[in-house]
Structure formats: structure tokens, C-alpha cells
């Protein structure tokens, strides 16, 4: 006796969260059944393995049919074939677009192209995430990217509107799209200690302050924002950053800056002497990073540079986080007292974001 056909269709589509998770994780039906058996569900319910097999198949079939709709979540809301309560719809979408930390760290900042897709095998082996799941996550990134790429207005809003994601997840996707668009290098060995959250935090700050969209964000002029894009860094701003070079090129200015910072922090820093000794190196590092951002190649290396030029020197001197904060605050603020320096606004736009990023990136 073999089962030729075995289906269950409910007027309200049944969604089993556990099975959905297994499906999203890319397990085959037989693996999923094995995992469910191991979870002790048979003992709890008194069901047989055959029942479990049939149930799993059914759910997998349903998910397979739903997948097409999940690619364009608004369709899921308007379609008539599956009657699913709104809360369940939200769950389906949210989980479908959720991603693994390990996976996203592998592809963050990479071009979402066929080439990268070919590398998914390796990523799968490396991370232990099934290839199927890797593909889904990669395709999600790519799909979101494609849809919002040419759109105007706020990146997060666009993503939310077209993919109906929660605020948190939409922000994450904005970071992923932003990183993919600007191709920031995140895979270097010295960046391995950073989490996706660290990068997403930086991305958000950069989107808010360094993009074209950021310029028009003044509340008095809400319309202009519509014409701007959140994905690309403000080219003009990057060009202008060259002007900051004077802070390290002009020896007087650099000395004055250093003395201002040292005076203010004397007695307040545990690592004062190290700071004093390193000030010029650090300042040169930070300003040079800014000055180099006109080249796409250097934009991509932004995080590598920040780590090399600032994070690592501080860390090797064992600066406590709080000292880093005090230093960066003072370092940024002191510039306002440099009479010969005319680019205060530019400095603030640059340092404001960079300070936030550095503080976030400064950990073990």
C-alpha cells in the first residue's frame, strides 16, 4: 500500500511555525521529519512517523505555493487563494525575509550578482547554513535591492512599503542594500570581529548624514527629500572632504588642535599620555580617511581604514571605551575653536557620523 496522493486543504491555511522554520532553514522533507521526531513531538501527541511525514509534506507544499507570493508581499495580502489571518501573514513575511547573522556577514558589501551567487556553496559549507537557505537569503537581498534601487525617498520607507517588513527588519535591509550599493569591504580578517549590527548601525548613520537624501532632511523642506536618494553617498560632500586635509597638513593648526584637546582632557583620561603621544597619528588617520573618500576604491575600504588607523592603535594601547568617547568628543569639538579653520559644518557632518561609527566599532 503506497500513498499516491495525500493532501489537506483548510479554508484558513494552516501554518505550522516550527515546520515553517525548518522549511526556511532549507531542510529537506526527510530531514525535517527527522528533526521533528527528535523534538519529541511524537511522544507529546501520540502521532506516528507516517502522520508526521504526511503533515510535513503538506506544509512544505503549502509553503512552496506561498513562496511565489512572498516574493512580492503586497500580493500575499491581496491574493484570494490562501485565506490567512493578517497576523499570520505578517509572520510569514517577517520570517521569510529574516536572515542569518553568519550569512549576512559573508555577503555584506558584496555585489549582489551572479558571481556572488556562485560562491554560496562555499558560504554554505563555511557557515553550516543549508545551500537552500543561503539562496533564499541571497535572493531576498537581491530582490529588495532591485526593487528599491531606482526609487526615490527614504530607503527604509520604500522597503517597508514594498515588502511589508517590520521597522527593525526594514532598517536591516536598508543597511544591506546600502552596503551592497557602496560595496564596503567587510570581509577582511581584521574586520571579522565586527557584527552585522555594528555595520547596520554605521549604515544608518551614514544614510542619515552622508547621502543625498540627508541633505534635504531639514524639517522645513520635506518635499526635497522626495527627489533624493538614500543609497548613494553625497558626491559633493565627499569632494568637499578634501578641504579637511588642512587640519593635518597645516602644522600650526595640528599643534593647536592637539593642545586644545590635551588641555581639555588632562586628568580626565586614564590613557592620557598614550593619547598625547599618538594624537598626531590618530588625527592624521581620521582626516586622511576623509580626504581619500573621493576615490570609490577608498570608499570601499572605509571600514578597513577606520580599524587600521584608529581602532587598532587605540586598542593596542588598551584605551577604555569611555576614554575613546571623551577623546572623540573633545577631538571633534575642539575644531570649533580653531580660528583658522573655515569648514566647521563640513567637519561636523563628517565627524558626527564618524564618531558614532567609531564608538560602535570599538570593541573586542
Amino acid at each position, binding site marked *: 500500500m503506497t500513498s499516491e496522493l495525500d493532501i489537506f486543504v483548510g479554508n484558513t491555511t494552516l501554518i505550522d511555525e516550527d515546520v515553517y522554520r525548518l522549511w526556511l532553514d532549507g531542510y529537506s522533507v526527510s530531514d525535517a521529519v527527522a528533526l521533528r521526531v527528535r523534538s519529541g513531538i511524537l511522544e507529546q*501527541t501520540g502521532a506516528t512517523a507516517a502522520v508526521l511525514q504526511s*503533515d510535513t509534506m503538506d506544509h512544505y507544499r503549502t509553503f512552496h505555493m506561498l513562496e511565489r507570493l512572498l516574493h512580492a508581499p503586497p500580493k500575499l495580502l491581496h491574493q484570494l487563494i*490562501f485565506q490567512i489571518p493578517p497576523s499570520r501573514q505578517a509572520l510569514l513575511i517577517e520570517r521569510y525575509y529574516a536572515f542569518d547573522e553568519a550569512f549576512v556577514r559573508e555577503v555584506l558589501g558584496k555585489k549582489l550578482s551572479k558571481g556572488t551567487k556562485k560562491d554560496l556553496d562555499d558560504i554554505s559549507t563555511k557557515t553550516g547554513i543549508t545551500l537552500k537557505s543561503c539562496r533564499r537569503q541571497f535572493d531576498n537581498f537581491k530582490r529588495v535591492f532591485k526593487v528599491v534601487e531606482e526609487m526615490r525617498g527614504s530607503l527604509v520607507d520604500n522597503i517597508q512599503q514594498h515588502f511589508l517588513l517590520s521597522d527593525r527588519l526594514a532598517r536591516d535591509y536598508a543597511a544591506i542594500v546600502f552596503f551592497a550599493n557602496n560595496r564596503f569591504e567587510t570581509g577582511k580578517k581584521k574586520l571579522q570581529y565586527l557584527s552585522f549590527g555594528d555595520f547596520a548601525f554605521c549604515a544608518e548613520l551614514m544614510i542619515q548624514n552622508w547621502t543625498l537624501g540627508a541633505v534635504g532632511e531639514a524639517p522645513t523642506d520635506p518635499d526635497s527629500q522626495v527627489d533624493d536618494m538614500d543609497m548613494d553617498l553625497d558626491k559633493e560632500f565627499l569632494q568637499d572632504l578634501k578641504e579637511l586635509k588642512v587640519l593635518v597638513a597645516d602644522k600650526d593648526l595640528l599643534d593647536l588642535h592637539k593642545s586644545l584637546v590635551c588641555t581639555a582632557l588632562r586628568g580626565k583620561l586614564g590613557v592620557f599620555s598614550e593619547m598625547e603621544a599618538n594624537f598626531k597619528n590618530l588625527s592624521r588617520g581620521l582626516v586622511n580617511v576623509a580626504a581619500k573618500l573621493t576615490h570609490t576604491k577608498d570608499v570601499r575600504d572605509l571600514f578597513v581604514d577606520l580599524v587600521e588607523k584608529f581602532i587598532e592603535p587605540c586598542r593596542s594601547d588598551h584605551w577604555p571605551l569611555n576614554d575613546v568617547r571623551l577623546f572623540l568628543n573633545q577631538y571633534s569639538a575642539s575644531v570649533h575653536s580653531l580660528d583658522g579653520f573655515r569648514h566647521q559644518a563640513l567637519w561636523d557632518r563628517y565627524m558626527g557620523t564618524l564618531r558614532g561609527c567609531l564608538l560602535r566599532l570599538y570593541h573586542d
Partner: protein
Amino acid sequence: MPGKLKVKIVAGRHLPVMDRASDLTDAFVEVKFGNTTFKTDVCLKSLNPQWNSEWFKFEVDDEDLQDEPLQITVLDHDTYSANDAIGKVYIDIDPLLYSEAATVISGWFPIYDTIHGIRGEINVVVKVDLFNDLNRFRQSSCGVKFFCTTSIPKCYRAVIIHGFVEELVVNEDPEYQWIDRIRTPRASNEARQRLISLMSGELQRKIGLKVLEMRGNAVVGYLQCFDLEGESGLVVRAIGTACTLDKLSSPAAFLPACNSPSKEMKEIPFNEDPNPNTHSSGPSTPLKNQTYSFSPSKSYSRQSSSSDTDLSLTPKTGMGSGSAGKEGGPFKALLRQQTQSALEQREFPFFTLTAFPPGFLVHVGGVVSARSVKLLDRIHNPDEPETRDAWWAEIRQEIKSHAKALGCHAVVGYSESTSICEEVCILSASGTAAVLNPRFLQDGTVEGCLEQRLEENLPAGCGFCHIPYDELNMPFPAHLTHCYNCRKQKVPDVLFTTIDLPVDATVIGKGCLIQARLCRLKKKAQAEANATAISNLLPFMEYEVHTQLMNKLKLKGMNALFGLRIQISVGENMLMGLASATGVYLAALPTPGGIQIAGKTPNDGSYEQHISHMQKKINDTIAKNKELYEINPPEMSEEIIGSPIPEPRQRSRLLRSQSESSDEVAELDLSHGKKDAFVLEIDDTDAMEDVHSLLTDVPPPSGFYSCNTEIMPGINNWTSEIQMFTSVRVIRLSSLNLTNQALNKNFNDLCENLLKSLYFKLRSMIPCCLCHVNFTVSLPEDELIQVTVTAVAITFDKNQALQTAKTHAEKSLQRASTDNEELLQFPLELCSDSLPSHPFPPAKEHLESASSNSGIPAAQRAVTVEKASPVGEGNFRNRSSPPCANSTVGVVKMTPLSFIPGAKITKYLGIINMFFIRETTSLREEGGVSGFLHAFIAEVFAMVRAHVAALGGNAVVSYIMKQCVFMENPNKNQAQCLINVSGDAVVFVRESELEVVSTQQPTANCQPACAGGEVTT
């Protein structure tokens, strides 16, 4: 020109990409009705076109309005080649033809293609202007309402229940026409869908005409079926019960039969003196009671007519009614005669209803069924479907005579079905023989008065169990005892019926689904030889199914079956029997005896030991089941029973023997009143198997109950969470050495595993009950068995379920008052917007004239008058507010039940009757057979929901999947499936939303008299 149909095409969305180059579609729409076609403009390059067309107007006869579906075709415009069809929508405009139903159809419909399935949606608005031209009503029957529901629909009152209506139309099946060889599968499928749509429209119109002839205004329990006879044609047939319904605009007398799920009434007080009337002292019902009438009647194909069982039973009819006169009081006799004459005027006193207004059902005799095997031949003249008509007439005649043999003049819970394999067709009909209260059956005459009195005498909760036939002239041997409830009348030891459990029945504990499953191998044969072989097998199957049911019932410690449905399906090389029913313990019937096993070879020690071991297992199972289903009837000593007939614990005996089934009667007779246990004699391995299989049925996991009736006795606190589902399984039998036992085991496992899967899938709903579990079995090919289950899972509140039983008096008081509230509030606020325009519906006049003629007591008359008072109605109408159908956006509930727990149905929008074909030539790509059928069933649900939503409804009740014919050819990567579904589209309002309203409204009217002693006591 009595009607103008207006259609507007608004927009489309999610259309498929038809032009690969641009990834877009140039869509336009053709709107066709009859022979007229309109087209919209082409909406270039859009997957979400906005047409906003003008109103397309069709001026048509109302006959066409009833027959024809509106056909909407969405196409992709192509300048150079033929336009490509995207898909179609068929809209049945029938609901727009009755005044009280929907007024407009408007909404998003899935665009359906028989090859690709659903491809996007289209927004359509449809209206009908009907010119009421009474002269034209001869050909059309606009205005007759149709209900699939097999009880009087909520928010209606039955004034008269006229009786049986049937009709069938035949045609050639387009699939088998010569032209099918040259047209595409799509064209062929569409021709079939269209034809069936036309035929069901025509059928409905013809039935409507019959109803108008009977002066009714509605058909309740409408059941339409298709017989795909292959080469010999296509038959669409329907049966139903004609009624005159009255919209409940004022407080009604009739309790909605199923709305208040049956109460647990363990007390058996009531009726210390049921006979205040001097005329009817003593046993007031002359004719009594019943058991299962097992009538394995069959007509052999063509040659012979009816079986000997039939003949032997028929003559008893006269005696039954004759003795009635002698024994009963004069009133009774008179009543009986009148009832009988009322019913005998009808060719077939059949009712497709399974639940009834209180007082309608007087006694139940037992199940009557008839089957006949026919050879199909080509239908030569579709306009004269005489052969098919004659076949059914023959079967119905047989049913009628069986009912008479049981001393009953009517058959309720009546249904018909067929099973076709190649050129052989089994026609089956079954129902429950019953004695009915004539008051509902005809226009008012003298009986009103008699009836009133009779009704007062009827003990509540057990009356229907009392035997309707003559005790001294029983049509078959049965063991009678005095009713355990009223102790006046005689009752049988077991009762089998096809109806739902009456609301007022006194039940102890909970019920459960009981199934008998059976397979029998049959030699492959041709034509007549095949038909004869099948005819010969049928009685054996019926007998075994019956035995299995009886054994399982005993094993559960129960004594009655409701909703019994026995399906016999025929395949190339086997017959399958599947019986489903809901077992209960009726307080009125005696406690069932146990099952005792007897071995044939008494001197073998180990054998004895084995037997005793089995006996112990059986006893344990019975004890366990009693606990599980909470069956603990009050102990009664013999004195209380005070019965002259055998001891109260009387048991019946049924021999499991190797002898032929036809002498069942004789065997039963042997045991009459003597033996003290239900004996299973184990005389061969077969019997051993059977006993084993009895014990292998696993009870549902804790927290689950199941039944195939509308409601589960003993559970009365449903929550609003419902989940309707369809599950289909097909298994392939290994063709090697198939034996009956192996087959039985396979089939049994299939059903049991299916149930287990359901319990597992629905575990999140615990505590929950699967209601209206409907199994259908078919044999699509050699070695394939297909089982389809549709049911609804309803959660209930466990805490309340433990409620202690209240006294009957309290219960009925409580019920009376809640009924007052429910029935009052509800129509006031929500139904009345669609009141019929005449303040005095004609039906009420009948009632009134009836009562005045018959000298009904003054008080009751007063009530009757008040009820019909136009003032009251006027008041109510003013208070009406529009139903808030859209409170739950877009959600459409579906349920096979006639009600929605926790909600009130405020309006019936019309019948949904849809037929779909889906075919694929890329089976593997669509996920194999499972993927294909899964998607198709989901699509069917979606289309049903969309139609209901477009009618303005938010639920389908009495939903049924009548057919699911699945054919596959994996080698060719092809599959085809036909599905036919039906139900009633309704608007419901949550009770919680009603509560606000109900507190403001004092009881505006006292409970009218018609409910009789039932409510007023």
C-alpha cells in the same frame, strides 16, 4: 422582456504576463450572456488594467436568467495572431432573482483557466432589473428560494412543508462528442463547465416550477448531483424539500433546530402525567416504535425488480395502520388517518431534511434503504430522460414500501447517490422511516386541534424513539422495552437513523463517529455478468456493514446511530462499503448489553484461553469507552420500569455466522428475549479478523471528539473558532494476491491514518470537535482507492463543558428565555431590512384560519394573532440597521454545518453551486498529483469565497463537496480533476456584536404557541 441584466467591468489585477517581450499584457474583456457578447477596450501594457467600462446591458427572458450563467472572458489582445485567452469567470446570477437575497454582485473574482488555474483577478459589478410579470411565471420560477441547508434555515419559519421535489436532466457529455477529438483540452473543459452550468440552471428552474405548483416558495435541503456516465451521457439530478417559508420578522415559534447545540439533559423528569386529555389515556400512540430495518433490497439490472425482502415486508403495511385504529384512542386514529391521507396524496412522502421544527417528528421507525444495479446505455433523446426517471422512481417506490412496513408514512433524512464504473451504475437511496406531525404538511384543516392535544401528550426527549409499528405485528424481530424515559411506550433496543439528533433528545454523555469499512473483491466482468455479480455481492456487503456498525456501537456502550450514511462504491475488481454515523446513548433506550465471544471448539484449552483473553479485552474496551464518552446512565431497578416485557437489561444477540446474510432475520429470531448477551461467534479466521479489527480502532486523542452530524451531543459551548477542511488520499494497492482481508486492512488503515492525520494537524485547536465529518470513497482505477474527507473543526470551551447538568425544567426555562432573546433581538435589528413587502404573508393566514376553524384554545389563538400583527412588524422594521458584513475584512468562513457557532445568520444570499474542471499536461512541474490537487482545491475554495464576498456575504453554510473526481496519467504527465461544490451564501453577525443590542430590547412578544408543549412547559 422580463429582465435586464447589467454588467460593468471595473478593473483587473495580478494578471499573468502574456507578452514575453514586454513582460506585460494587453488585456480586454468579453462579457457574454446567452448569445449576446460585449467587449471592453483593450487596456494596453498593464498587469493591473483599469477598464471602468460602461454598463453592458442584456435584455433577456427570466427563463434565460435562470438557466444561463454570465460568462466573462479575459483575453490578451494580439494584433497579428489570435487573441490569447487568459481565463474566465462564470457568475451565477440566480441570487439576484429573488427579492430577499442579494441585490448586487460586486467584487473581485479569480480569473480561472482550466489549464493554468487562477490567473489574476477581475473586478465586476452585476445587477438585474426584474420586471414582475406574473404571466410569465409558467416557464421560469424566479423567486423560489433554494437552500442546501437540510433544516429550516435560520431567520425563516416553516409554514408548510410540502414535500419531495425531484428532477433530472440529461445531455451528451461534451468530453465524449466527436468534436472533442479535434478541439483543445481547454475548449473541451470549458464546454463541459458551461454545459453543466446550463443544466443545473435549467434543473433549478424546473424544480422551482414544481415548487410553485405545490404553492411553495422555497426548496430546502436541495441536493444536486452529477452522474458522469461517460459515453452514455451526463445526468444532472436534484432532490429537495418544497416548503413555504416565512421570513422571521416577528418572534418565531420555531427554535432554530441546530442553533442551540443540544443540551445535556440527564434528568428524566417531565411528564408524570402526560395525558391530561381523557381521550387518550393509556398508551397514547397506537403505533410504536422501531429498530434498524435492514432491508437489503436490490433490483437486478433490468431483469428483476425487487427483492424478496421487499415483498415480504410490504404486506405488513396494512396491518400497521389497521391496528392503529383499534388500539389507540379515537383522536389518534383520526389523526393518523388524516396524516396518512395527507401524505398519501404525494407520490413520495420523502423529506430531505435532517433536522426539523419541534413537534414535526413524531416517531422514528429506522433506516430504510434501497439499491439497484443498472447497466448504462446511451441516452438517445436528451429531452425524454425517461429511463433514468424510471430507475429512480422504482427505487423510491421501494423505499416507500419499506417505510410502510415499518408502520411509517414518511421518510426523512432522505438522500440519493450513485456509483458508476464503466457501464455499471449502482443507484442508492436511503432515509429514515418516520411518523410526522401533519400540521406542517398541509393547509390548515381540522387537525390543528387534534394535533395540539397530541403534542401535549408527547413526552419530551423520547417521543421520537417510540416504535411507530404494531408491537404484535413487528415487521422484523426486535426487542422492545418500555421507554426508559417516560416508561409508557415501547422502545427498541437500538435505533439507527439518517437524520440529525433531534434537539430535544435526551442523551447521556457524548457521542462519537462510528465507521464500518468493508471491501469485497469481485471478478472483472462485462456488462450483464458484471451487473449480476455486483447485485449478488450487495446484500452480503450490507449485512456485514450492518454487523460491523452494530458491533462497534456496542463496543462504545451506545445504543443509537444518527446521520447514518452507507456508501457502496463500485470499481473494476472490487466493491467498497463505507458507513459513517454518530453513535450516542439515548436515555430513552435500554442500556446495551456487552459483547460475548463464543468459540466453536469448546474442548481446546489454549483456544479457550485465547477466547477468554479476547473477551477480557472487549470488556475492558467497553468500560474504557463508557468512561471516555461519559456514559453513566442512572441505575434503574426493574420495579421502576414496571415492565411486563423482558428484563430491562435485555440484550440482543447477533450471530456472526458463516451462513448467508439473507437469513439474518431468522437468526435474530432465535435469540429473541432469551439469550442474555450479544454473542460473537468465532468460528473461522475471518471472524477472528473481524474481532481484531474491532479492537484496532483507536479512539481520538484526548481533547478531540468527532461526529458526522451537525452537532455533538454533550458539547454546547462552542467558541467561534472554526476550520473547515478537505483532505484527499489516494492509495495504490499492491496488485499481488489481493485477498478480502488484506483489502479490508488496507482500507481500514487508510481511513484510520487519515483520521489520525487530521487529529494531528488540528492539534492546536484542542479542545475541539470534528463535526459533520463526511467521508466519500471512490475507486478511480484498478488498485486505486480514493478517500475524500470534508469536515469542520470547532473549538469549544473546556471549562463550560464540565458544567453540571441542570434539571430539565431549568433547562427548558432557560432555553425558552434565551430563545426569546435570541429570536427577538436578532430579526429586529438585522433581518428586517429585507422583509417581504406584504405585511401578512399568506402562510400566516393559513395558520390562522386553521386555528379559528378548529377551536384552538383562546389563549393560543391570541398569540397567533399577535404574531401576525402588522403593527409589530412595522415596529421592527423601523429599528433595522444594515448588517455589517464587512466587519471582518474579506474573511469568508466556510462550514458544512447549517450554522456558525457564536454567530447569528441574518440573511441568506442564495445558493452557491459551482463546478470546475482542472487539467494539466505538466503534472511533475506542478508538484505531482498532490501538488496539482492541493492547488486546485485551494483555488476552488478561493472561488467560492470570492463569489460569496461579491454577493455581500461573509460565510458559506451547509457547504459540501459533492464530487471530486480525480484522474491521472503519470506516464503522459497529465492529470484531470472535476470538483462540484455547493452551499448557502449567508451574512452572519457575531453574537458579541449583537449583545449590545439585546440589552436594550425587552421581550417584545410572548413566545407563540406553535412550539407546543415543548417550550411552554
